[in-house]
């Protein structure tokens, strides 16, 4: 499992991933609230997969 706070460089990478994920959720939710919810589920699943890799 990947530790997002293992080092400063890893924490910075995690921040970039969170920024991209948040931007995707915001972009989807502007069109439709439920699209935002669906993208949020996908983003959290992808984030979980990235952390478990």
């Amino acid at each position, binding site marked *: 499992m990947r530790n997002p*706070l293992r080092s*400063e460089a890893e*924490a910075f990478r995690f*921040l970039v991933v969170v920024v991209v994920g*948040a931007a995707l959720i915001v972009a989807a939710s502007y069109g439709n609230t439920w699209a*935002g919810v669906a993208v949020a589920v996908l983003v959290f699943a992808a984030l979980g997969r990235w952390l478990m890799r």
Partner: protein
Amino acid sequence: MSSYSHAAESLPHEGEHHGPPEPHYSSRIMPATLGMYLFIASEIMLFGSFFTAYFFVRVVNGTPWPTPPYHIPLFVATINTFILMTSSATMHWATQAIKRGNVWGMRAGLLLTFLMGSAFLISQIYEYMRAGFNTSNGAFATIFFCLTGLHGCHVFVGLTILLFMTIRAFRGHFSAEEHHGVEIGGIYWHFVDVMWIVVFTTVYIL
């Protein structure tokens, strides 16, 4: 004679450890890093409780967000977000610089990070003064100030850590081989920025 020999036997032999037993250190993680992990874990739980309150106010109770006639100061918060993200980049630059032995790069990176963090905090205080509502103006205002204020407290703690890091950097305490203080402070600063992205997205945009 016998009491003397008994006392001599009870004395520790040469090379034996005196006092309390030596602490056990994990071979995988440094104590300072473990301390920062536990601190960040407690912070995540604290933010979690505030986000639970936000969720109940906005989703379960269906409170309008923002509650009319109030407006969320989105413009200042967006500028602040760019400032904070840039400060994370300079923090990363500082750490990478000292890893390569570039002391002045680290000093410049830490100083810029500190200045941008201060700018964030000052403009947030300015935003509070111009918001037009306060904590007594309903659930929306309470949650708004609690979440952004809690994050502001974390920025203040991060700035205090950064101040000490910068002072130590200018005193020559860090080198390419010895820079754990910069590494740990950087982890905390990035954590504060991750929390701001979550707060900014949920409170200001969505």
